[in-house]
């Protein structure tokens, strides 16, 4: 299907002929099937590359007038960034790529959707500032990650959820109006997410990507933290064996092994009470093993050993501002570890982490989880108390063996992560598993596993979210499980009754 000529011409008059295309080979670049889903993405009818908020607003108005649907996209890393129906265009933000401001004093940065983590992160770090970047890799959009989709990040122990870092927002509503929220609305600047009246922050963010929220975000401000660790980093080597180091006396990584997740939880809470640590996390060792190896073959050769070496690793990154503070934090850390029964790993394994400080900043290497063919899914994501998430962790071994021992999925019982935030006030959970895309039944197994996982959570009164949970399987389990998606849908319906924004 192609767009009616008149519609194409109108869009072309907004962005210019260079920045719109409906050629099949251009569309092909954004529609191929990705390994985690068993069908190709639907093709968009055209792709437009707007250069400004005003152009986005014009595009949205044209779409409204002609009943054409639209989807915003940056790297297209997740399946909601694609057309789902005919008569849809992709609005691609490659050209809206400016960092508009980095305010060192008030600690925020204002970005357009096309700005990538690998662009913003070094800019703020140079200024002694930082933010928690998602594991999506260097090419992920900062704005999308914080304002539109994305959940929790790996290093937010001493900080908080990305959603809370969203400040002033400029967006184009489904009517094509330009809306400014937070302190921006009063013309006071970008620094605050709230203004008079009900908070719009949650509405902007919605549930996930366009599944819930109600417009195209064209600019947003994100809050910045003081740098955890030295502002200067050093790198060595050539990819894939390159290293990033945080030199300086007060940045250090420790890894401890535990025999029970409940003890890990106790350590997390005890450290939180003392407000010690930049990163504290129970890490999943399957991704770790992938990050530590350079090919699938090397992974398979070493996987058994890694599994043994890291049965239940607690990773701690201390990055205070002075050496004296480090001594103090280290003392508390060792006391807590002693009291909770942790065992420090050999230095060479800790050193591996220290030599991959990339992980504590921009987390690009975690893309290696896709190395085993790319069929993967993180499930049980969401926030709960540390204690409750430890119970969820404990429950996994009760159902996972039916899937792993029969080869239906690839995972290991303790391969999940718990990331406490705000010094242990709450935490996020992620169970990351893989399936064999060469096996024609694998997608079904994946779905079965998600269902069993969800049922187990329901029995344990846990609210962590398993992907697909807001779809058919979630409904089968009953609305008591979660009805937030229904509310999000209603909000969207109120603002975008003709659903021109694809969802």
């Amino acid at each position: 299907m192609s767009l009616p000529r008149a519609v194409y011409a109108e869009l072309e008059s907004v962005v210019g002929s260079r920045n719109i295309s409906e050629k099949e080979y251009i569309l092909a670049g954004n529609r191929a099937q990705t390994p985690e889903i068993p069908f190709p993405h639907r093709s968009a009818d055209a792709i437009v590359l707007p250069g400004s908020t005003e152009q986005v607003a014009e595009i949205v108005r044209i779409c409204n007038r002609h009943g054409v649907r639209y989807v915003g996209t940056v790297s297209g890393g997740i399946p909601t960034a694609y057309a789902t129906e005919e008569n849809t265009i992709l609005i691609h933000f490659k050209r809206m790529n400016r960092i508009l401001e980095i305010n060192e004093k008030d600690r925020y940065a204002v970005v357009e959707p096309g700005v990538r983590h690998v662009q913003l992160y070094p800019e703020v770090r140079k200024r002694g500032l930082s933010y928690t970047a998602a594991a999506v890799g260097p090419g992920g959009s900062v704005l999308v990650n914080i304002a539109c989709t994305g959940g929790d990040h790996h290093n937010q122990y001493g900080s908080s959820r990305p959603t809370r870092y969203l400040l002033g927002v400029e967006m184009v509503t489904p009517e094509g109006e330009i809306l400014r929220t937070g302190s921006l609305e009063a013309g006071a600047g970008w620094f605050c997410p709230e203004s008079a009246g009900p908070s719009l922050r949650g509405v902007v963010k919605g549930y996930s990507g366009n599944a819930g929220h109600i417009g195209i975000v064209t600019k947003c401000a994100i809050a910045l933290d003081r740098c955890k660790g030295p502002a200067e980093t050093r790198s060595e080597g050539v990819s894939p064996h390159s290293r990033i180091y945080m030199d300086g006396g007060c940045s250090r990584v420790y890894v401890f092994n535990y025999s029970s997740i409940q003890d890990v939880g106790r350590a997390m809470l005890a450290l939180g009470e003392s407000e010690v640590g930049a990163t504290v996390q129970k890490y999943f060792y399957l991704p770790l093993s992938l990050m530590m190896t350079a090919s699938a073959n090397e992974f398979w050769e070493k996987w058994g050993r890694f599994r043994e070496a890291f049965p239940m690793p607690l990773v701690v990154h201390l990055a205070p501002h002075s050496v004296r503070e480090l001594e103090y934090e280290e003392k508390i850390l060792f006391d807590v570890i002693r009291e909770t029964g942790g065992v420090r790993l050999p230095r060479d394994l800790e050193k591996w982490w220290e030599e991959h400080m990339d992980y504590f900043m921009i987390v690009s290497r975690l893309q290696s989880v896709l190395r085993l063919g790319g069929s993967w899914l993180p499930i049980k994501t969401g926030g709960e108390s540390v204690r409750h998430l430890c119970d969820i962790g404990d429950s996994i071994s009760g159902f996972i063996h039916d899937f792993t021992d029969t080869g239906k999925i690839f995972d290991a019982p303790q391969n999940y992560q718990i990331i406490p935030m705000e010094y242990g006030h709450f935490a996020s959970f992620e169970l990351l598993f893989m399936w064999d895309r060469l096996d024609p039944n694998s997608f079904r197994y994946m779905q079965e596993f998600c269902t069993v996982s969800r049922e187990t959570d329901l029995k344990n009164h846990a609210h962590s979210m398993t992907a697909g949970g807001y779809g058919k399987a979630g409904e089968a389990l009953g609305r008591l499980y979660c009805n937030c998606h229904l509310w999000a849908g209603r909000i969207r319906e109120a603002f975008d009754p003709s659903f021109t924004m694809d969802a």
Partner: protein
Amino acid sequence: MSDLNRFRYTMESCNHCGQCKWILPHRMSGWDFAEVCPVHHHFGFDAYSGQGLVNIVREVMEGKLERTDELADMVHTCAACGACDVNCKSVRDMEVLETIYELRHDLAQAGHLPDSCRRMAENVSAGCDPFGVPLAERFSWLPGDFRDDPDSDTVLFAGCSASRDPGPVLAAIRILQAGGVPFRLLREEERCCGGALWRSGQQETAGDLIRGNAEAFRKAGIRTVITVCGECFGAFRSIYPRFVKPGFRTVHISQVAAGLIREGKLAFRQDARPLTVTYHDPCMLGRLSEEYVPWEGEIRSYGLHVPEKHWNRGEFGVYQEPRDVLSALPGITVREMTRRVEESWCCGYWTGQADPECAAATADERMREARSTDAEAIVSCCPFCRTALSGAGDPLPVVDLAELVAGRLA
């Protein structure tokens, strides 16, 4: 015969992560100079990137996308620089560039390739180099009194670009003579290395050249080939093993010079003009120069390659020796660009075969980056880079490393 199916695993593994377009974190420096793919930078659509091209190949293979001249022109805007390949391989087991090459091969076999590429093959068939210079005239620039060592088992391979710009080869000759390295030239026996033809998808024509050259080297007892051109170097190392078992080793003049300097065999003037330079890593000397190791086998569940596959990830390109040479030259100060070594930004030469505007934009972008270092000149080791970069708007002087070295010999 082309066989897109060989790269099915790569095509089916791409999850659109975008790592093929953005600099890897160990080289990140800020907002600017963060892109690594010249065509994505220029056109903006994802189709113009490793990700997009891999997706296009898949649709061609599955019969969803038609093979056309227009598609071939689009595919040939890609500089085949390999930045996407290195970046993808930093976290994945995929062959992005090989897949793009195979698409070119497939399209060429179906009769679709840009005229400029077709002309290269026609010129070679007509007894010329790919740029139309008759073999007999290839060495017309050689001084009449030049004497080489006809018994040497080392050949200085001049390359096709020498007929347009003999400076780098003449400089290489001076370096070898100053260092006491015996060598010979093949003169009218020298034919095109075949690299450009192979990379343009005309792999059968390239194969004939490659087999012919390898045989000629064998008959002449050549054990070492010294190249001055990054493209020739990359071709001998990464393309020849696809057709022949090369009985010779290939070294680049920058490696020879670095060795001679280490051994104290080159002496330099101490009074040479101070110059601040930045070094541009040519793709075929750097990330694309690792020796090709053929692999045939099975890819089993979860990416297990049986038998184990050797991966070329751009880790072992020639990066250090040119830098060693520069730092040994009196008066030379080196300032590095953000996009360097395996993350180098391409000069854009081969983009020009299909889209001169994109080539100019690519060269302009490199020049902008070079200027950001406050360098007075940009040094490279490949005549194609020199041609492309000199074509940038308001260029800095583009100096060939061999010329810089020769010009400062005592």
